[in-house]
């Protein structure tokens, strides 16, 4: 099993979610995040005083998947989250040792 994590632009969430659902994903975790990459931050001006906002709002999306689906899901994520402009984010996956569905106690692939 793998945990696929994507950091994406907040306004791309709906598109990415729809793409993952059409692929057949049955669950995901979404959280608000902030950070910066090569995009860096942006500036805001209040009464003429300029402030640099370093940390840009992002959405972190996590999906647990079967090993054989991981590559396809990463492709779906990358395709649906891309705008082609700077700040589109990153997608990565890491191996998962164990997985339990809390309600039933099912383990491993059964818990996906």
């Amino acid at each position, binding site marked *: 099993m793998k945990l696929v994590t994507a950091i994406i632009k907040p306004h791309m969430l709906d598109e990415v979610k729809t793409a993952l659902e059409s692929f057949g994903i049955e669950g995901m975790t979404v959280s608000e995040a902030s950070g910066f990459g090569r995009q860096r931050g942006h500036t805001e001006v*209040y*009464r003429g005083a300029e402030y640099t906002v370093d940390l840009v709002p992002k959405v972190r999306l996590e999906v647990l998947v079967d090993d054989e689906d991981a590559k396809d899901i990463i492709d779906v994520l990358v395709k649906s989250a891309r705008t082609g402009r700077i700040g589109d984010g990153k997608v990565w996956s890491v191996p998962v040792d164990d997985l339990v569905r809390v309600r039933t106690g099912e383990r491993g692939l059964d818990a996906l």
Partner: protein
Amino acid sequence: MTPLEIDTGNTAWILTSASLVLLMTPGLALFYGGMVRAKSVLNMMMMSFGALALISVLWVLYGYSMAFGNDIGAGVLGDPLEYIGLKGLMTDDPEATLPAMAFVGFQAVFAIITVALISGAIADRAKFSTWMIFSGIWASIVYFPVAHWVFDFTLTDDAGTVTHTGGWIANNLAAIDFAGGTAVHINAGVAGLALALVLGKRVGWRRDPMRPHNLTLVMIGAGLLWFGWFGFNAGSAVAANNTASVVWVNTLVATGAAALAWLLTEKFRDGHPTSLGAASGVVAGLVAITPSCSAVSPIGAILIGLVAGVLCALAVGLKYKLGYDDSLDVVGVHLVGGLWGTLAIGFLATEEAPAGVNGLFYGGGVDQLWRQAVGAFAVLLYSLVLTLIIGFVLQKTIGFRIDEEDEMAGIDNAEHAETGYDLGNLTSSLRGALTGTAPRRADEDHNHDEEVTA
């Protein structure tokens, strides 16, 4: 002489205006509250509400008498004992067309908001108890006398005998300050500067971002201020008449022009017209038209507004050059806007307006201009010196600033044991949820919830 009847139209308008002006202080609390960081929004609003509470009491006890009692000499102060506790003002005066209490109420709310305005200069860092003591002292020895100078007019009876002697700026100097450019805005603006100097800069000023946490509150606050300001200016006619109506229109159009000018300044200088700029432009325009609204034509009002918008938009940057932390720009907006509006009368006053005086541009020469300048700078100096002394003495005795650590963690929690927002995130209500206990009262035994969870 035959008893006069109360003019119900005028009375209704003055009581309405007083209520409108009262609403300006909660409006100011929103305007200022939105501009600070989330961790100090409550303290910012509490400084306004504290002024509301305290000054309303002081006004009734002796403030009204100090401002509007018969002059004790040289036009500097009203007799504090004449109307102490508002004595003698409850009866229906057969010689009055407006009940004295209507005027007492209308002037009370001016005193309140003038004190509240100062608080914007010392955001995030002032002990609430010291602020309250400062408010009481400042109102007593700065505002009440200055209100006497500017707002208390000498009265004569039909035979020409003086029945009441007022303050020196209104009568001897004959400077025009219709609704409080000197008494309210220059006064509070320069007091803000003095306190910002006494308290010093906030921790991290110019290093950390201190951007407004809620601009929608700022916009609502600016809207309420504008609404209430129609009572402030048009109510200052002390009658429901032509003067009030001219003033109303001037108050509308100067404010619109100032907001436009501020936005255009931002557009050209920074690239974007901002909501904070619109809200600030509104207030700058209102400040500038306050003294001048009875003396200029609507076209004059537009000019006053346009200049106020540009001037104040540029003036708010001064603090970074000169190095004082006037946190919410009380100086840049109220002092600068108040000075401009007061001096503008000397240039733009026209005989056709209710005040009936010509300024420099209308062939009146410099006669009115020098009167305006003397009035403005007299109030400025008096307020600056006294506020520095009061602030300095309080700082050295009971302390004016909170601990540095409390300031960084947020003044709301340190001074009021509250936080402004509970938006349901993990840290907001975690403790109650984990222990499953009802909120604990402060006076209960501290071991209480350990027993419950054990």
